[in-house]
C-alpha cells in the first residue's frame, strides 16, 4: 500500500470547512464534521493546507534525492529582439534580473541569438548585464523554434545558470518550454512576481491562474536552472548606464544543431497594428457598445492622441469589426498596461481575465450596472460615442497636440 500523498489528521480537524471553501477543484467535502479529500479530483495544489488554521492537512512529498545545486551560478535573461531591435521585455527582464542577481551575489547574464547581432551587446551591458553570451549565425536571423531551442539547450548545459528568464511572448513561450523539457527543469509561465527566498535561496515565482482569480507561488527546489517566463509590463525596465563594463563571450555552435525541419516561407508585418498591444503602456479598447464598425474610428483617434494600442472585446472581434490580433481576454491576449480604457465593453469575466491586472482601468459604458464598473478604477456612465470624442479632445489639449 503506497502512502497517500495528502491526508487529513483526524485528531486535529475541527470540521470548520475552511478547506472546503479554499479548494479550487471541489475536492474537499465534510463528512461527519471531518474533512475528506477526494483524491480523484485533488491535484495536490496545496490550497487547503494553506487555508487550514489547525495544521490538520498534511501533504507528504517524497524526499527527492538531494542534488548538488551549488554548481549552478548566475541569473540569465533571454535577449529577445525583432530584426535586431531589442524588445522592451528584455529590458524588463534585465531590470528584475539585476535585483535577483544582486540578492544572490551572482552575475547577471544575457544570452543573445541572431545574425550580425554583436553590436547589440553594448546595449545589454548598459542595461545591467555583467556578461553577454552571443551566438551569431545566419541561421539565427529570425526565431526558429527548433534551432533556437537547440542552441539554448547547448549553452545552458555548458554554463549551468541558476535562474533563466524569458519573456512570456509568443516566442518566449514557444521556446522556453522546449528548453525546460529537454534540460529537465521546472518552468513557470507568465510570472508577475519573482523574489529570492532568503532562507532557501530558491526563486519564488508568483503567477495568476484561473484568469487572475487566484495567485500561486511556485518554486523549483531541486532543479536548476529555475526557469520562468515573465509577463510584459509587470517588471520595471532597467535604466541605461553607458559607462558600465561587461564581458562578451562569443559561442561556437555545432552545425548539426542549426537544422530545422519547420521552415519559414515568409513573414508579414501586421499592418493593422501601430503599437503592439502586449508592449503598450496605454490601451484603448472598444466593444459592442460602439454599435457599428465605423464607430471604431473614435477608439483609433483616441489611441493615436495617446500613442496607445487599440484593443477590442471578443464581441467586437466576432462581429468582424477589427482583427483577432486586437482581442483582449481569455480567448485573446492578456495585457497589463498602465491605463486600460474599456469603451462600450460590458466586462464579462472572460474579458476581465485579460486586463484586470492593468494599473488603472477606466470604464465608459451607458449601462450603470455593467460589470466593468466593478473592476474599474474610474467610471463614466454615458454613451461611448459622446464621451470618447470629448475625452480625446481633452487629452489633445493636455498633451498640446
Amino acid at each position, binding site marked *: 500500500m503506497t502512502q497517500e500523498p495528502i491526508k487529513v489528521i483526524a485528531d486535529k480537524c475541527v470540521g470548520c470547512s475552511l478547506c472546503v471553501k479554499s479548494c479550487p477543484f471541489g475536492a474537499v467535502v465534510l463528512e461527519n464534521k471531518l474533512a475528506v479529500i477526494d483524491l*480523484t479530483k485533488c491535484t495536490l495544489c496545496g490550497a487547503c493546507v494553506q487555508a487550514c488554521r489547525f495544521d490538520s492537512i498534511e501533504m507528504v512529498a517524497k524526499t527527492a534525492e538531494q542534488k548538488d545545486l551549488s554548481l549552478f551560478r548566475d541569473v540569465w535573461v533571454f535577449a529577445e529582439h525583432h530584426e535586431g531591435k531589442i524588445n522592451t521585455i528584455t529590458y524588463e527582464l534585465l531590470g528584475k534580473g539585476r535585483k535577483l542577481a544582486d540578492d544572490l551575489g551572482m552575475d547577471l547574464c544575457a544570452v543573445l541569438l541572431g545574425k550580425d547581432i554583436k553590436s547589440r551587446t553594448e546595449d545589454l551591458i548598459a542595461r545591467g548585464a555583467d556578461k553577454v553570451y552571443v551566438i551569431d549565425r545566419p541561421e539565427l536571423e529570425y526565431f526558429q523554434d527548433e534551432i533556437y531551442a537547440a542552441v539554448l539547450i547547448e549553452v545552458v548545459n555548458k554554463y549551468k545558470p541558476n535562474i533563466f528568464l524569458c519573456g512570456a511572448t509568443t516566442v518566449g513561450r514557444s521556446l522556453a518550454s522546449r528548453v525546460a523539457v529537454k534540460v529537465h527543469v521546472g518552468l513557470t509561465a507568465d510570472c508577475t512576481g519573482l523574489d529570492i527566498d532568503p532562507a532557501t535561496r530558491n526563486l519564488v515565482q508568483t503567477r495568476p491562474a484561473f484568469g487572475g482569480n487566484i495567485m500561486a507561488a511556485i518554486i523549483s527546489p531541486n532543479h536548476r536552472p529555475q526557469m520562468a517566463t515573465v509577463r510584459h509590463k509587470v517588471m520595471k525596465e532597467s535604466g541605461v548606464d553607458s559607462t558600465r563594463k561587461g564581458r562578451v563571450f562569443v559561442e561556437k555552435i555545432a552545425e548539426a544543431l542549426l537544422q530545422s525541419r519547420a521552415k519559414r516561407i515568409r513573414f508579414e508585418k501586421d499592418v493593422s497594428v501601430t503599437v503592439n498591444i502586449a508592449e503598450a503602456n496605454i490601451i484603448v479598447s472598444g466593444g459592442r457598445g460602439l454599435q457599428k464598425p465605423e464607430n471604431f474610428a473614435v477608439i483609433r483617434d483616441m489611441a493615436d492622441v495617446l500613442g496607445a494600442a487599440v484593443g477590442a472585446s471578443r464581441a467586437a472581434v466576432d462581429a468582424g469589426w477589427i482583427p483577432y490580433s486586437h482581442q483582449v481576454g481569455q480567448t485573446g491576449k492578456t495585457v497589463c498596461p498602465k491605463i486600460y480604457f474599456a469603451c462600450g465593453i460590458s466586462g464579462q469575466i472572460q474579458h476581465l481575465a485579460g486586463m484586470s491586472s492593468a494599473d488603472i482601468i477606466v470604464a465608459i459604458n451607458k449601462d450603470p450596472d455593467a460589470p466593468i464598473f466593478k473592476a474599474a478604477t474610474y*467610471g463614466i456612465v454615458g454613451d461611448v460615442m459622446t464621451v470618447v470624442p470629448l475625452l480625446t479632445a481633452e487629452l489633445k489639449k493636455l498633451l498640446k497636440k
Partner: protein
Amino acid sequence: MHLVVCIKQVPDTTNVRINPETNTLIRAGVASVVNPFDMYAIEEAVRIKEKLGGKVTVLTMGPPQADAVLREAISMGADEGVLVSDRAFAGSDTWATSYTLAAAIRKIGDYGIIICGKQASDGDTAQVGPGIATHLDLPQVTYVRKIHEIAEDHIVAERMLDEGSEVITCPVPCILTVVKELNEPRLPSLRGKMAAKKAQLIQWAAKDLDCDPKGLGLDGSPTKVVRIFTPPPRGGGEILAGEADAAVRALVEKLKDVVIATSK
C-alpha cells in the same frame, strides 16, 4: 492521416462567480467544459480528416469524469477517445503532463499531425504543446491561425507572432497549437451525438504506458506550488458623475500625471 487532438476539461468560466466576501472562486455547481482553445483544435482535425481521409483520435489526461470532453469531441466528428487517468498523475505540472501525454501518443503510434489548443483557460501556460513536441522530438508550429496547404507528408501553416504573421512549411509528423482565428467549431450533429453516447472509450493508467514512474505526477514535477492566495480586490471604483463634459474633465485631471509620463 491519423490526427491526434490533445484536449483538457476545465471549469466553465462563463458560470464562475466570485464570492464577494472571501474573494474566492465559487466552484459549487460549476460545469466542466472542453477548454475553449481545444474546440478549434478538434474542429481543424475533423476538417483535415474530411479532406485527406483518415481518423481523429482525441486524447485527454484527467479524472474519470473527463470522459465527458472526449464524448463531446466525438459528437463533433472525432472517431476515437483515449482517457489517460490514474491517481499517479495527480499534481502533474507541465513537465509531467507533457511527459504523460507524449507516452500516450507514442502508444497510439501511427500519428501524423498532433493538434493542441494554444493554452488551457485554467492554467494559461501554453507550455504543454511545445512540451509534448520536445518529448517526442517533433517540429512544432505554435499559435496557428490559418492552414494554407495540407498533404500527407507536409503542412503549410500561418502563425501569429507579436509583430505579425509567419507562414511555415513543416513535415509531418509535427505538432500544431492553434488559436481562435483558425476556424469556427461546428455544433454536434444528431448522428454525432448518438456516436458519442455509444462510443467505447479507451482508458489507460500509468501501468499501460511505457514511461518512468519517476516522471509522473507530483514526483515527476520539477515545480511545486507553495502557496495559493487570492489577489487583493481592486480598490477604487469611483464613478465620475455629472454631465459628460464635466465627467471627462474630472477624469483627465485624475489621469493627467500618468498620461504625461507614459505617452510619447
